[in-house]
């Protein structure tokens, strides 16, 4: 039982020492340690939170970028299509115009050909007429130069008159 009876002296010194340790450590050790542990934990938590936030922002930026890219791609496709359409239109228009022009030129050419043919024909007719007259003149001259021709002619003329 001796071991189970507490000694007053040891109790007293333990109490004093414990209270002293408590008071001194509370002021000089636990206070600063606990507060800076708390601060550090808060700092780490804040850092993690801000990292998360930045990550989220980055994902947002990325998705925005992707959206922009998609938009740009779409616009490019639209522009390409439009350009193609325009090109086709222009080419077609040009073709049409060219065809029209060509037709016009052909028509004009035909006109001119016709005119020139007519002119040529007229000239040929005139020439032929002139030639015929010349030939007739020459023949007449030859016929008239002889007396019998003159008589025949006289007879012919007189026949005409008689007829009248």
């Amino acid at each position, binding site marked *: 039982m001796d071991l189970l009876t507490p000694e007053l002296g040891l109790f*007293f010194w333990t109490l004093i020492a414990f209270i*002293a340790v*408590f008071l001194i450590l509370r002021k000089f050790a*636990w206070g600063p*340690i*606990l507060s800076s542990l708390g601060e550090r934990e808060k700092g780490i938590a804040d850092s993690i939170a801000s990292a998360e936030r930045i990550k989220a922002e980055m994902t947002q930026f990325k998705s925005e970028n992707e959206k922009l890219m998609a938009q740009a791609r779409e616009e490019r496709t639209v522009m390409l299509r439009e350009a193609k359409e325009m090109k086709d239109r222009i080419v077609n228009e040009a073709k049409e115009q060219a065809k029209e022009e060509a037709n016009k030129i052909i028509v004009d050419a035909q006109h001119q050909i016709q005119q020139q043919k007519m002119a040529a024909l007229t000239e040929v007719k005139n020439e032929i007429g002139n030639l015929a007259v010349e030939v007739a003149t020459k023949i007449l001259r030859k016929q008239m130069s002889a007396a019998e021709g003159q008589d025949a002619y006289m007879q012919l003329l007189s026949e005409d008159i008689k007829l009248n």
Partner: protein
Amino acid sequence: MIFKRLFPLMILLFALLGNTVSAFSQEEVSHQNVHNEHEGAAHEGKKQLNITELVFGHVSDSHEWHLFSLEGEHGHEKEIALPLPVILYRPGKGLSVFSYSKFHGGWYLDNAGNHISNTTYDGLYVEKNMKEKIKAEDGSKVYDFSITKNVLSMLISVVIIFWLMISAAKKYKAGLVAAPTGFQNALEIAIIFIRDEVAKPNLGKKHPKYMPMLLTIFFFIWVNNLLGLLPGGANFTGNIAVTLCLSLVSFIVLLVRANGHFWGHLLNPPGVPTGIKFLLVPIEIISLFIKPVALTIRLFANMLAGHIVILCVVSMIFIFSAMSKAAGIGFVPVSLAFSVFMFMLELLVAAIQAFIFTNLTAVFIGQAVEEVHAHDEAHAH
């Protein structure tokens, strides 16, 4: 919680070992008695091996720090010990301070089996059985406030705690959010463990207020437990005065901090028939006072048992060598293996007991400062 699972195992182990130890010491006591009877007739030259005395001499407090014994002249052992200051208060005579070396003259056995010092000083003598008591020859009351081995050991531990904690705390002041270095790391693990595993689950939002107290209790007990394990160390935390003091501190904190809700539940449990209250309230009051007792006994018994087991295991060498030298030498490896195992276990127990004391303190205070919660509000409706 691996600690909690280990604890019952530990207790079981201690109980088993403790039983063997007590069987041993009883055997030794009877052995010794036989020898004492013989002693009168044939005065043997060789000093009798008294394991009970040896073990209890080592685990109980002393006014000198015993280092080792030398084989002196005439077969008498010469004790090499550091005498410590004796501080006494005697009503009427006042305070007296002197060195324990004043009682240097050896011992004689009285009829009750106590060792009594041959020398007296200032009307005082020393009576030594399991404990060492300084008594007045005229039988008057002596209050002993000596710096005993335990007190000195505690003062050393206090110095160590101050040195460790304040040097670690300085690093925190230097760099606020810097990464911990060196010893700071180890300390931080312990501090965060106490905060997150002990304080927060039991005290909730109020835990910052109790952290300094819990940390002080934890490190005070732990460092003292470890110091007690050193060879030649004092059995400070295995002394009931110490554990009583610590548990009274936590009990007083509990009583001071306990809120109305706690006292209400204790003295007038809601929703209980009046007849039952007469039965329940005394039980509740007893359970309140059992808390510090449980704290006291748990730490005291665990540390004391550990010390006794180690001492006994080591002593086995001498018990066997007293039978025959060969047996003693043969037992050395077994005993060494056992004591190494026990030391390892005690290292664990030193931390576990510190943790358990702190944890139970937190649990008890947590119960006392608990706010009215949803469950009780439901009662009120």
